[in-house]
């Protein structure tokens, strides 16, 4: 018997004694095996963002037996999440539970043998390294490129692999970053593209559930490769799926020889502090969100995009709309006022969803 046969035999023998193991079908896959399963059980996976991508990823990783699953999201469950965010139910939305806590409550009923950590916080320069601490891999369920650029810097800085993923409308894309081995996000996307997300978000142009499921499954598979130590097997291309047009494209992602992040190790976003500044107005339930001077907002695009789904008033000086029970006013330079809250995290979340960020 060769080594693998011996391992299979030992595993089969063990299953006979104790009944089929929870991970039997996974360990039977030759790329995993008992040794791979042990590595998965010793891993810490961070899922950053618990929307459609993040809940699907967390579900797959919890069931796969990741040792510690750290789930991060600043938001609270809303009814419009239920169409695709697979760990939440109507009760979570009715109670406005924090997504990280609702996800863990659900996953605990799926797999109570692994460790969970909930972080109800924003991913920003002061939190991202704490969120990443001790991670084997980070899987991206974020909704904006600025946060991804920040995650990229932090992961490169600490040598932690991460798997990018995004889905919108009928298309999605993904890439895997193994610092020092593959291209990093900054190698393939210019700084300007990472500076801000256009107001094209799930809230404004929608997203199909199958798209995010598809991307998330790919990401979870990449994360498993990293956790079992098969880093050479990760996909080195930027992969793009268009599920309505039946297109799949693989674009080679080459390391940039002068990449500021993974070659020069300049971590500008990590070092420059919070980008979006918020101020609560004295004694009022209004939060003002002020982007940096470098922020470029396409005011016409914002108006047109929001108009597709919301009643928007606009007069050249400002755009006003109501979404998620909050009135919002946005000015051409990106400054916004979010009414009905004094909570800066909630204001940032609404800003991210409807203006970009």
């Amino acid at each position: 018997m060769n080594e693998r046969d011996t391992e299979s035999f030992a595993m089969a023998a063990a299953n006979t004694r104790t009944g089929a193991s929870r991970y039997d079908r996974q360990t039977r896959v030759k790329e995993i095996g008992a040794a791979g399963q042990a590595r998965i059980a010793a891993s810490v996976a961070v899922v950053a963002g618990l929307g459609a991508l993040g809940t699907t990823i967390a579900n797959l990783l919890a069931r796969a037996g990741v040792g510690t699953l750290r789930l991060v999201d600043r938001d609270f469950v809303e009814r419009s999440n239920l169409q695709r965010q697979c760990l939440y139910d109507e009760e979570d939305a009715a109670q406005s539970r924090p997504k990280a806590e609702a996800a863990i409550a659900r996953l605990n009923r799926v797999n109570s043998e692994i460790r969970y950590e909930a972080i109800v916080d924003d991913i920003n320069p002061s939190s991202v390294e704490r969120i990443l601490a001790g991670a084997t891999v980070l899987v991206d369920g974020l909704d904006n490129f600025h946060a991804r650029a920040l995650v990229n810097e932090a992961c490169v800085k600490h040598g932690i692999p991460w798997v990018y993923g995004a889905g919108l409308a009928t298309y999605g894309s993904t890439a895997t970053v193994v610092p020092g081995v593959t291209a990093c996000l900054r190698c393939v996307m210019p700084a300007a593209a990472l500076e801000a997300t256009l107001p094209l978000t799930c809230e404004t142009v929608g997203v199909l559930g199958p798209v995010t499921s598809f991307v998330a499954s790919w990401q979870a598979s990449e994360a498993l490769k990293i956790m079992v130590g098969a880093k050479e097997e990760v996909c080195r291309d930027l992969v793009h799926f268009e599920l309505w047009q039946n297109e799949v494209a693989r674009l080679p992602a080459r390391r940039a020889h002068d990449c500021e992040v993974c070659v020069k190790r300049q971590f500008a976003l990590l070092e420059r502090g919070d980008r979006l500044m918020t101020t609560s107005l004295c004694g009022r339930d209004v939060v003002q969100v002020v982007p940096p001077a470098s922020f470029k907002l396409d005011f016409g695009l914002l108006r047109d995009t929001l108009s597709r789904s919301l009643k928007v008033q606009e007069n050249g000086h400002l755009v006003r709309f109501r979404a998620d029970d909050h009135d919002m006013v946005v000015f051409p330079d990106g400054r916004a006022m979010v009414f009905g809250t004094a909570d800066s995290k909630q204001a940032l979340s609404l800003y991210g969803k409807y203006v970009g960020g």
Partner: protein
Amino acid sequence: MSAPVVYLDNAATTWPKPEPVYAAMDAAMREHGGNPGRASHRLSVAAQKLVEDARQDVRRVFNAPSAERVVFTLNCTDALCLALKGLIKPGDRVVTGPFEHNSVARPLHSLRRAGAAVTQCQATSGASIDLDHFRDLCRQGVDYVVMSHVSNVTGCMTPVGEIAAIAHERGASFILDAAQSAGSVEIDMVRLGIDALAAPGHKGLCGPMGTGVLVLSANLPVAPFREGGSGIDSASEEHPQRYPWRLEGGTLNVPGIAGLGAGVRFIECAGIRAVGEREAALARALVGGLTPIDGVRIFGSAARPETGVVSFRIDGVDVALTGAILDESYGIAVRTGLHCAPAAHRAIGSFPEGTVRVSLGPFNSEADVAALVSAVRDIAAGFGTRCASGSNARAASRQ
């Protein structure tokens, strides 16, 4: 966001500063960079001279009894906390005014919880102090009267001389919060009978932010809470009891104090009465411009402002949004909301939404007032469309 071109938020801090203030601060750091009172070398002595000169400037501008009792603080709040918490004990009886800023109201609230008996005098319907009620309260026994000189919301002025006289008749000490008046209204501590005066350095006195003063008359023993390095009596375990060291533990903000001294000299030179009258005249012009605009409501002493502060609201346009539009689309800086003075807003009927507050400073002009009036007219007229208005904003603000 472009820099505001019309600055109308001088009640928060005056801006710009007079040129000599910038120069004095620069020189303090470049040329007189020693630690004052801590050594005999020339840089330390030079810094000490800057501080003592500024102390004399502040004494002079308020006609305080002595320069030793001019204590430099971080700001007006710091000065008020030093005085209130260093003087008022459990069981003491305190009468305060109806328009107080949180820098008076909050320390008094915690002193009340610690056992002081604090009562608040009423306002009249004309947004001034009800002197009859104040007399009644004092008649019931009072140890300290604590009041603001000028409301930071309405600009209405307290009759300081009368208040001090009533307080003294009852044997009480009078503590004045001069946050909005110092530098804009002439204050003679001796003539008016002010026992302690707290003032910011960065408002009417035109100094930099991070400066303030507590000025005491001779007989008020304020207990220090900040003890430590003083440069004198170093062998003693006790913090010095002598003023100003008693209340000035630690290294002072020398560049700030140098700037404050320059600001005081500037404002004296310009003439406090002249500056104050000019600010009030601009405020009257502003009220004159705003009053005819449909949907604009002015709060406080609408007919004839006594100082450079005017509060208003545009019907159907949230005050925070009004402020943001003024900044974004017109480059005009004002402050909106409750201005850290909820009691004043309750007294004038603008709680909880607050108001848009315009506060004029020594460098404002008629053109600034005209720019604001024109912008408010636009916004009240719907700002091109009715987009900026609507009841939604107000409904949202109450959620």
